[in-house]
């Protein structure tokens, strides 16, 4: 059997994603996409304008990166397909952890952004 080409794999991926993914996960994915776009914009701005003031750049960029990471963690814990691994952690518990971590993150970001 001929191995599938990249285009075939890609279109199969998109098709399976749109049909089989629960809406909650798609919601999280949209949120993650938004975070990535703001992160990329900031990085490009820093490359163009230079690194003054470096602490503000780091703070803004790290806030996007950390939000992305926390969002990914939430998605993993909430995904029904992973229920076997995360038996003891309910959706509410995952969300509460997510919010707590975000609280700490934003506190640090506002402190460091100067």
């Amino acid at each position, binding site marked *: 059997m001929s191995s599938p080409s990249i285009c075939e794999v890609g279109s199969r991926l998109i098709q399976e994603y749109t049909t089989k993914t*629960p*809406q*909650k996960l798609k*919601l*999280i994915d949209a*949120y993650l996409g*938004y*975070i990535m776009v*703001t*992160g990329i*914009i*900031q990085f490009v*701005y820093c490359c163009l*304008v230079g690194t*003054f*003031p470096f602490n*503000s*750049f780091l*703070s*803004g*960029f790290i*806030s*996007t990166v950390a*939000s992305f990471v926390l969002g990914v963690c939430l998605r993993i814990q909430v995904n029904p397909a992973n229920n076997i691994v995360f038996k003891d952690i309910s959706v509410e518990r995952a*969300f509460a952890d997510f*919010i707590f971590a*975000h609280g700490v993150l*934003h506190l640090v*970001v*506002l402190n460091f*952004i*100067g």
Partner: protein
Amino acid sequence: MTASNKVGEPIREIAAEIGVEIDEAGTSVIDHMNYDVTDEGDHDLIVADDFTKTKVIVGDSPAPVLFKGVGMAADSDNPLVIDILKASQTAYSHSPDQDILEYPLAIGSSLLLVAGMQARNNARVVVLGSHDMISDAFYNAKTQTVMGDAKEAGNRAFASAVTDWALKRNGDLRFGAVKHNKVGEEPSDVAYRITDDAEYSITIEEMQSGKWVPFQAKDVQMEFVRIDPFVRAFLVPDAAGVFKATFKVPDVYGVFQFKVNYDRTGYTHLYSTTQVSVRPFRHTEYERFIPSAYPYYASAFSMMGGLIVFSFIFLYHQDKPKTE
């Protein structure tokens, strides 16, 4: 100090101590082109008018003087010796009776007739090569070179000016009050801050004919020094001799000195230094919001906003019930 053709060794030795070499006894300054008409034949009674440009020593426009005596030479590298009266280009120093078999001590404008010296402690010495220059006969005489007209000899005025300078009745400087403060405030001991505006003033007085008068000059400078000068500004005098300058403290902190170092020919050396500290910005004195960082501020707040919106949607989201 004066010397003549019969100058003795002690006088020559003292003059050598201050950097001026008087020619040997028996020599004279001879000038075959600038001798006075009353000269007796040796051409050693000369009319000299190559005065130094320093008005403090010789006055504003000194008249030519009569000179009959021994010449001097000074090392041109010596920064302390002042050529008060030089011989003209055609003069030389030799014994009038002997044939010239070797190079004279000095010729032309390297040959000094009157030399002065101000030491680094501001002590002054003037050496005149001629006794007759300050005699009554010469004071009352007229100068007339072979090719020129008769004029009153400037000996009296010249001697008076040079003596005033040597005795510090002319050309002595002293400074009085030194004040410095941040613009708009009273002088205080509080440290300056970087990028402050500061003003500095110093009062300088000059002795003229025995009296202290306010000093007027356009070239006094002040330096703001921390090992190297960071700021160098001209001080502008007002009528009362108060020299002022306003400048911006540099963007460097540390211990600085206000230095005024004024060294001009004929005037005493003025040196004044005042030490101050310059501190960096306090934590609250920086710019609060930096315009070039606005995108980063915006992204941080948009993360928080996005989080709130996402949480609402996530919590209140209900899966669409499966259609029957």
